[in-house]
């Protein structure tokens, strides 16, 4: 038998109030082992209070070659930002 352990992506919440952040990846036979390994590999110095593991194959990523279509339309929509609107200086609290 020669089945390699699949790859998992590891997300760690460093403290309550913060979101889980991608920390890296590792190999493990199943989700439970991925959690245990993630604890040893990524939180040896109290870096986390919560861990998520996701098998890498379940992540769908956008293709950087399509970044133009995906992200450029936002660039000319400056009216979505508060500074687009002209207000006199003596208007306060806005």
């Amino acid at each position: 038998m020669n089945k390699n352990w699949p790859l998992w992506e590891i997300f760690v919440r460093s403290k309550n109030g913060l979101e889980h952040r991608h920390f890296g990846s590792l190999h493990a036979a199943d989700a439970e082992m991925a959690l245990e390994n993630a604890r040893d590999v990524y939180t040896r110095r109290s870096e986390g209070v919560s861990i998520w593991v996701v098998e890498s194959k379940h992540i769908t990523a956008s293709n950087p070659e399509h970044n133009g279509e995906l992200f450029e339309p936002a660039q000319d929509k400056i009216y979505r930002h508060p500074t687009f609107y002209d207000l006199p200086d003596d208007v306060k609290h806005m």
Partner: protein
Amino acid sequence: MSEAQQNTNGAERSLSLEEIFEQRIANDEKIEPKDWMPEKYRKTHIRQISQHAHSEIVGMLPEGNWITRAPSLRRKVALLAKVQDEAGHGLYLYSACETLGISREELYEQLHSGKAKYSSIFNYPTITWADMGAIGWLVDGAAIINQVPLCNTSYGPYARAMIRVCKEESFHQRQGFEIMMTLCNGTEVQKQMAQDALNRWWWPALMMLGPTDDVSVHTEQSMKWKLKRKTNDELRQQFIDQTVPQADILGLTVPDPDLKWNEETGHYDFGEIDWDEFWQVVKGHGPCNKERMNARVGAWERGTWVRDAAMAYAEKQQNKKENQAKAV
């Protein structure tokens, strides 16, 4: 879009993919796994990152040798934690390397077959407890000098791994220096032991920073890709300049009769490095090359059934879950 932006975009369209890529690196932009990159960039990064990962993994062996014989519980937990960190560093780096489209299996295969190299310093033996001090102080010291500039390297996953590695590395060096300090403040025999370890590790530590600039084949390209921010000779000088005063504090003598402070350059002058020895060790003829590879390959092979069993168990659990779901 402003007119200026349109112009730059228009100009970029006429550039080749490779030129755009080089420009991004020149602008200090990071390259991420799915971005287009020249084949040579990918290959060079696989080579360097995997070499680095292999060094962490093989680097556990000379120190693992002393865990059971550490002189106190304090020393033992520290050494254990250090070796565990090295396993962790290896894992950060292997997974960074895998983002370049090479599997963990292939990486191990390259190490085990001797196709991939690891740092030549780990082919020297650790014959006394003082070697644990000298390794932490000198080997980790040299590693830090090598690694800190890599936190800004152009390949995102490598840079992120290095930031984590560097944060953890300084404890390694400090615990090594503390071991040396304690020995130097001990009996005459203990002090001699520390001196002997320095004598044996000093030159290999200098070699660890790589061949001199005039013969280093990868330096120029690597500097361009920010895979290297300083040349080997610059790093070596920096290491010597900061380590010699530390040896003075310990009251030890650096084993180089030509070592002398140069008031004019503001650096230490140092003696000739025995590069024949370096190349001998790199080519596999160091004192422990065989022993290290046997230990590594043996551990991997003896672990096969464990890895297979874990996989079989995971599949069994998965099937059980699926069957239960069907039954409902």
